[in-house]
């Protein structure tokens, strides 16, 4: 299944609206709606995992240092094939598949919505390393959410799998909401 994963890197940063994804991406006739209406105030660090690597497939990944994120973030995926995200070795790794991820203590005052409706499999894997996170069909927040709603809906999917193999300080989330 993993061999199907085509490699496509997308980095899109705008001052008023932001959509950030990096790594491998696998589209099999899918319709993806990553609608991110985000206002960033403060510093934004798109390469915070400098010693590691991260992949975001069919998802939204906002990260920043002391970053204020207002407005709503929506990630909608319909009729996708398999969505797979893999990171091998390194530190500070992330593998996200069909997920909304807020990291580095950001302050979010909008709503976070992740709606996945697909018959395919969702898979996120981190192999070895430290401080790793693997998210599949998940909303993961490390920071403050001051208002709004966090809504994670995963329907009609195949298998949803998140795996961290070896390493330390790891977290694997599948079809979950994790706020730390």
């Amino acid at each position, binding site marked *: 299944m993993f061999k199907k994963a085509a490699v496509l890197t997308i980095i899109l940063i705008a001052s008023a609206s932001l959509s950030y994804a990096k790594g491998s991406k696998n589209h099999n006739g899918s319709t993806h709606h990553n609608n991110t209406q985000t206002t960033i105030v403060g510093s934004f660090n798109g390469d915070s995992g400098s010693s590691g690597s991260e992949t975001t497939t069919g998802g939204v990944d906002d990260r920043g240092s002391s970053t204020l994120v207002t407005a709503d973030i929506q990630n909608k995926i319909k009729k996708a094939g398999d969505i797979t995200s893999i990171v091998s070795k390194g530190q500070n790794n992330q593998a996200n598949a069909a997920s909304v991820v807020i990291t580095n*203590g950001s302050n979010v005052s909008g709503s976070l919505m992740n709606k996945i409706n697909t018959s395919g499999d969702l898979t996120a894997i981190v192999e070895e390393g430290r401080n790793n996170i*693997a998210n599949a*069909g*998940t*909303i993961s*927040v*490390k*920071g*403050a*959410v*001051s*208002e*709004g*709603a*966090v*809504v*994670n*809906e*995963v*329907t*009609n*999917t*195949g*298998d*949803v*799998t*998140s*795996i*961290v*193999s*070896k*390493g*330390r*300080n*790891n*977290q*694997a*989330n*599948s*079809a*979950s*909401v*994790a*706020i*730390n």
Partner: protein
Amino acid sequence: MKSIAFVITACLLSCPVSGHSSDLLDLKAHNSVRGGTYSAGVEGSDNAANAGSVQISNSEGGRIVNSVRSSGIISATASGNNNRVNSASVVMHDSIADSISNHIEAAGIRNTVRGDNNVSNIGSVVLDRSRAGAIDYSLKAGHLHSTIQGSNNRLNVGSVQFSDATHGNVSENIDMGNVTVSVSGNDEDVAIDSVVVE
């Protein structure tokens, strides 16, 4: 005097950096899952694995809803030490919620933990140093299977567990098929279809 002022200033400057916590104010967290098989697995130490779960730390929120309807197996596995494994559960640490709703339907749930100082929750609501209003909880599952090997481990199956927590009314509805628990090691704590207050 200069040295004292310097020390005080250094402490004040270091305070915002030392803390790392989340705050949910008037926030509704909703996890709705419908479909096939869900699994999360970790190997190593200081790991956390969540499958079909809501896990919140250091936060203050409104209504927490976890709704899972799976036609397959929900599973979470961990190998190593200091692991936390949650399947179809709501787990809160150092947090506050107005209410908690956890409704689970699955063909089966399976957790496996190997190591020391581990916590494994299956279809449970766990409040650790937390406060919540009403807790509405139901679990309907076919076969539940859990394995723990190691020491100082804790297993919760279909249970509501409070540790240094305050809460409102608790409504629990359990409909489980066969439950299989395999535990080996020392200082184990197992709760099945229970309400535990510590």
